[in-house]
């Protein structure tokens, strides 16, 4: 995607609060019209700072941010026409739900009748039509969240920003609201930029996810790519669960490489080279727990290692098994709770096998 048809575009953006360290390091990010992009990362990774720069609450130290083709660095927040949902909703406590939703329309000097009509429509959209006269404090967390969404959407902004909007909700409600926000996005066709540190939230909702760490976008990709083809050790670690081995590349071609594990086991693992440059490199191997087979048939897997079962945790749909493999005591295998699944006991000696293309050789 080129900068021309991007709706939101960060161009070489840097941000520093103290003049000594960069919180955001050279951010280049294009977001297409109608896209749902999530900025995902641990706290302190710079994702919220990026959102605040986009909303206009923090100036960029260097670089330009473009919205719909024009630079907005010098535009005041209230002139940007961006809807925003805040972490704790920031619903005005001295106004009723209806007045909260009417606020963006009133400051835009809409006529009284139009305000009433739009507020009603927006509240109906989030199924809170009957709550217009309540105070925000009288609503549950999920209802407050929906009011915040209605308030950010009622003036029909082309871009909506959400800063960890579901962080304060319990797990079930959070999942329900994820679908609700996703459907709002699909129905209204607006562009959304969403910030979260919850990877399952990001995977559920987004068209694309930008994984932030240390002020840098580590990988920008759609959810399946991000999960199945992480390009570095941080992304592999941060998205989903993964088993890690450390080793040294001993042989390599375009398709395959062989890695000798550290820690004296001298086992050689065949894997897919992703982020290694050549023989002799140190590397981190990443392997998803669900791609591991227990006691595979002879020749079924490229790699087979012996291990000892340390712990079994019954989780209903699968059994999470922790084992020692090589010098890794945290080797996790997910055994689906299907008919005829391997039934293991603590202390069992078993073989674990996996295909070479499921094992990715990443940066050390």
């Amino acid at each position, binding site marked *: 995607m080129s900068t021309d048809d991007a709706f939101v575009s960060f161009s070489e953006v840097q941000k520093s609060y103290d003049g000594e360290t960069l919180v955001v390091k050279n951010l280049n990010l294009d977001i297409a019209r109608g896209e749902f992009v999530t900025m995902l990362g641990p706290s302190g990774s710079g994702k919220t700072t990026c959102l605040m720069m986009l*909303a*206009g*609450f923090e100036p960029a130290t260097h670089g330009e941010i473009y919205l719909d083709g024009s630079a907005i660095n010098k535009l*005041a*927040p*209230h002139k*940007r*026409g*961006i*809807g*925003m949902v*805040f*972490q*704790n909703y*920031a619903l*005005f*406590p*001295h106004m009723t739900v209806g007045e909260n939703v009417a*606020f*963006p329309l009133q*400051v*835009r000097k809409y006529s009284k009748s139009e305000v009433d009509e739009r507020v009603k429509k927006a509240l109906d959209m989030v199924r809170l039509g009957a709550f217009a006269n309540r105070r925000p404090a009288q609503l549950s967390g999920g209802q407050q969240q929906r009011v915040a969404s209605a*308030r*950010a959407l009622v*003036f029909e902004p082309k871009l909506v*920003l959400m800063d960890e909007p579901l962080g304060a909700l319990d797990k079930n409600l959070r999942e329900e609201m994820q679908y609700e926000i996703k459907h709002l996005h699909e129905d209204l066709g607006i562009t959304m930029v969403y910030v979260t540190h919850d990877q399952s939230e990001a995977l559920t909702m987004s068209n694309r996810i930008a994984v932030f760490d240390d002020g840098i976008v580590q990988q920008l990709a759609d959810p399946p790519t991000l999960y199945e083809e992480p390009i570095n050790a941080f992304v592999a670690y941060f998205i989903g669960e993964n088993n890690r081995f450390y080793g040294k590349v001993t042989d390599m071609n375009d398709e395959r490489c062989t890695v000798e594990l550290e820690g004296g086991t001298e086992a050689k693992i065949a894997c897919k080279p992703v982020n290694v440059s050549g023989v002799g490199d140190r590397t981190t191997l990443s392997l998803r727990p669900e791609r591991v087979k227990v006691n595979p048939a002879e020749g079924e897997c490229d790699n087979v290692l012996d291990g000892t079962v340390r712990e079994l945790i019954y989780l209903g749909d699968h059994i999470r098994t922790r084992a020692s493999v090589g010098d890794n005591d945290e080797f996790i295998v997910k055994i689906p709770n299907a008919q005829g699944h391997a039934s293991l006991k603590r202390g069992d000696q078993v073989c674990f096998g996996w295909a070479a293309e499921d094992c990715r050789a990443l940066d050390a």
Partner: protein
Amino acid sequence: MAQHESATPAADDVMRAADGKPLKDSLRRSMRRAKTKALLLVAPLGLFILFSFALPIADMVKRSFYSPEIQNVLPETAELLGDWDGDGLPPEQIYATFAKELAQADENRNVGVVSQRVNYVMPGARSLFSGTARKLGNVDSGPYKPAMIEIDEDWGDPEVWSILKREAYPITMAYYLSAVDLRYNAAGEIEAVASYMQIYQKLFWRTLWMSVLITVMTILLGFPVSYLLANLPVRTSNLLMILVLLPFWTSLLVRTSSWIVILQSEGVLNDVLVTFGIFSNDNRPQMIYNKIGTIVGMTHILLPFMILPLYSVMKGIPPSYLRAARSLGANPVVAFVRVYVPQTIPGIGAGSILVFILSIGYYITPALIGGSSGQLISNFIAYHMQQSLNWHLAAALGSILLFVVLGLYYIYNKLVGADALKLG
């Protein structure tokens, strides 16, 4: 089944614990220890407040309408006057009893107490009583009626006796009336006192509007300071907080006197104004020993009482509200006025109540730098306590002040709600 249930209605009426005793009793018993402990903990403070605060206030309110001097010194006369119909002159019996008790009071040197009490409503009563008491020594036997009229013809005036009858009754509104520049005339009707004697109504109004003005001034001056305190980085705001608190910790007298240094006609401010040619040297403005002095001094002294509750409320308003308002399209001024200011109302309310109630009864500052035009009602309460010794009038003035404050608090509670108060 239904019949069976209705046969034992008592079992359904009361919730019972597992041992069959009513649940409420069990709960009370289980909580008794904790309740006793809590009660013992507050007991010292409760007693202290009772003896140093509640009882004195009750005594003050009682003193403002209960004035039993005549009944104490002339008990039988007071009782007979109470039974008398008040028409014309009283019968010989009352004259006789009065003469006897007055002579007795003269012996006990108690006439002054009675005569002063009557003097409040009937100027000249003091000399009438003392003169009559002295001359009654020469009257040995009755009839006393003509003898007393002989001593002073005022005793033949029905008005004097109707006043005496009214004042002999221990419960009186006379002090409240004089506290608002009214009095009973001889006929027992309420009328305004002569215009040159009217002082308290003006004083009450002055106290009220000056307190309102001082409250408004502290809001105007305190709001920006509190905003800075709540929003500056911690290091800077701590320094600012010390600047707010340092005068707060300094003696009230020192602060008030320092205003004399600044504001007097040869003072710092006047010198500066003259130096810059804003006023000529022989036309220095009077800025102290008048209302200006009182307002400036009290605003300064009461400012922390506005800043501290405002600060604590503002500290609790997250910056995301203003950001949300901005992102929703409000310019900075609209966002501030419509989103920030309404949320500081509990702080403004608490600060205003504190400052207003403190200033409505303020004494030291107006006494020191208020001159005569800057005196407040409390200065006159002090005057009646210390100089004129008319404690009943002081009590009536104080009670009116108390009722005004309670009334205003009631209104505040209806409008804003006392539970919205945040005092720090």
